[in-house]
């Protein structure tokens, strides 16, 4: 996010001067050019920006060596060691992610890679208590807003209804049938695709609203009203994330609030200890959540800070305990308090990010 180079550079320098800002801008510009066409780098950048340099990133990890090399190219006095560049890497990656998201937002339309990248950031930050460090907190809040805006634009583009008559109007008269058909076929294909896209938008609306109206878990065929609230958060968010078109409209998660509320007293929906809500889950519930895709599973298990609840489900599905090291691994304190609907939103956001990632890997 080039407009924020000065502010976000203050994370790593108490009073950055013009020369520092100019050099950092050059670094970010170069990295954006290099990473915009590389989905793997974009995902790694998003993970580092949102969660910091976690254990899966080591000195030889390509993203680490490339970002440090880019910084050293203009600031040779920067050390090479990853241990001496933790915050440097994070602020640089945040600038790169913010700039890519901002450029896509201004360009309009959709980019599958950018959608996955911003979804990773939102899954990490949207429902997490911000860090106590003031300037880091501010940077992450601003990054989240940029990503929300990019996600919203992309979702609106995906969910728009295409006007159909123009394709017919675009077909011109031609002197002979082959010439006519060459042009007409193109327009008919566009028309068919637009009909299909419009149909998908309508189908999503019907499917999600009927699902919410029925109030039944697709996994267990049990009424949500009869399930413990923690389990409703898991099953409900999983069901909804499978029904929505990607990327989902920003207000779609509020359907989860309605599902949670149905047949329940307000007291059930108050803040409670996360550990208690997770206690409503069992191995079968976790197995329903966990994906079969090996790439997604690797992403989840390599980035517990990005996918804290998915990490818990993977642990549960493998019959491993998770409470004792959950805080250290994910940054989420099981003794902390959370409302059931926020837990549902988090699960939904993680599932959406994983589905978007799966799409770009395919």
């Amino acid at each position, binding site marked *: 996010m080039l407009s924020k180079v000065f502010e976000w550079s203050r*994370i790593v*320098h108490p*009073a950055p001067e013009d020369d520092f800002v100019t050099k950092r801008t050059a670094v970010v510009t170069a990295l954006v050019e290099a990473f915009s066409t590389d989905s793997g780098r974009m995902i790694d950048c998003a993970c580092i920006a949102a969660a910091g340099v976690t254990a899966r990133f080591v000195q030889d990890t390509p993203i680490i060596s490339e970002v440090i090399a880019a910084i050293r190219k203009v600031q040779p006095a920067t050390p090479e060691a990853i241990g001496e560049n933790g915050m440097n890497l994070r602020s640089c990656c945040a600038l790169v992610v913010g700039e890519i998201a901002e450029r896509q937002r201004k360009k309009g339309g959709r980019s599958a890679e950018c959608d996955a990248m911003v979804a990773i950031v939102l899954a990490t930050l949207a429902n997490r208590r911000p860090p106590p460090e003031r300037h880091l907190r501010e940077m992450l809040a601003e990054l989240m807003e940029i990503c929300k805006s990019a996600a919203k634009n992309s979702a609106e583009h995906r969910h728009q209804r295409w006007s159909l008559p123009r394709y017919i109007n675009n077909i011109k008269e031609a002197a002979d049938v082959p010439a006519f058909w060459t042009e007409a076929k193109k327009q008919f294909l566009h028309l068919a695709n637009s009909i299909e896209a419009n149909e998908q938008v309508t189908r999503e609306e019907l499917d999600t609203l009927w699902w919410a109206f029925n109030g039944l878990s697709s996994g267990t065929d049990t009424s949500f009203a009869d399930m413990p609230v923690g389990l409703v958060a898991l099953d409900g968010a999983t069901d909804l994330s499978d029904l929505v078109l990607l990327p989902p409209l920003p207000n779609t998660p509020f*359907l989860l609030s309605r599902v949670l509320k149905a047949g329940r007293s307000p007291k059930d929906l108050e803040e409670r200890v996360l550990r208690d809500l997770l206690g409503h889950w069992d191995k079968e519930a976790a197995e329903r959540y966990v994906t079969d895709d090996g790439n997604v599973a690797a992403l989840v298990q390599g980035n517990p800070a990005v996918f804290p609840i998915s990490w818990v489900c993977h642990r549960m599905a493998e019959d491993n305990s998770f409470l004792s090291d959950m805080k*250290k691994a994910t940054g989420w304190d099981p003794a902390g308090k959370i409302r059931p609907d926020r837990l549902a939103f988090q699960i939904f956001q993680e599932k959406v990010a994983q589905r978007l990632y799966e799409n770009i890997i395919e």
Partner: protein
Amino acid sequence: MRLACSKQDCTVAATNTCLLLNRPPETCPNVIVQDNDEKQAPVDVAPPVESQAEDVGRVFFSGFELGTSDAAEIMRASYGTVIAVLGQYDTGKTCFLASLYLMTACRSIGDELGFAGSLTLNGLETRARRLREWKDGALPKQLADHTVLADPRKPAIVHLGLRERSSERQRYDLLITDLPGEWSTDLIKDAGVADRFAFLKRADGIVIALDGPMLNGPERHAAAQNAKLLISRLADTLNVDRSLPFVLMVTKADEVGMQVPSIVAFLEEQARQAGFSPKVIPVAAISRKPTEVKSGTGVMDVIEYILGRHTISSMPTFAFTDTAGARNFARIRG
């Protein structure tokens, strides 16, 4: 044989001493060895020194204090908590630092935090040295030397690393400014010196040192007026972030029975009107009545208030988002 270096700041060509202290300098990976007959390759040699730069002396990192660029070395690795300690001459700013250092050295900063390194041990030790010069069993009248900056245009910063003793082992790198009182006095008198305080934009907390006995004595009104002007400068001229932890540190509080002088309430109100949320903390950094008030009383209260370790932050709000188009499906609310 002549030596040159690809690192911009290295003067091995002139001094034959490697910036990275490689001995002999020819073993440095960045060195460029040239025969006397060869012409210099301009790309690999440090760029010519500009005439403006010739006037600036080369500053080596001494371990006494950090400049802003030195502090960046720490901040690059992990988050640095910048604490700006401001106040007029002889209000106890340096004593506060010395007390913090000595308490840390004696493991007297509480059970939750422990020492985790410092890049300015020499500087902290020098500040504390005068406290050990007793005469006839009594503390000297002036407990710390007058602060003099190596570069008068840039703030001096001392570094103290602390780490939690709990299983989380969270680390805090404190970067605390030690400014001469003249800086604050100059700011009060002349808004034009505000440029020096650019680092305040990065501060994580501001501490205004107020001389407790002076605020109780005959000169209290003048002292309070100066403090009020300082607060105004911070708010109006420097436009410091109003949400920053803002401490009114009443120093030498042992000499006033650990009671906050009544005039401080006026300053607290001034700070509130300026938009800050001030916290008044009486501090006895070096107590002259140790049997009544222990040395270091209040010092860690200031640090803990700024760190806010036990504050639980709120989750980001999940609010309804206005979307384009008229579809009701896009406007679901909880």
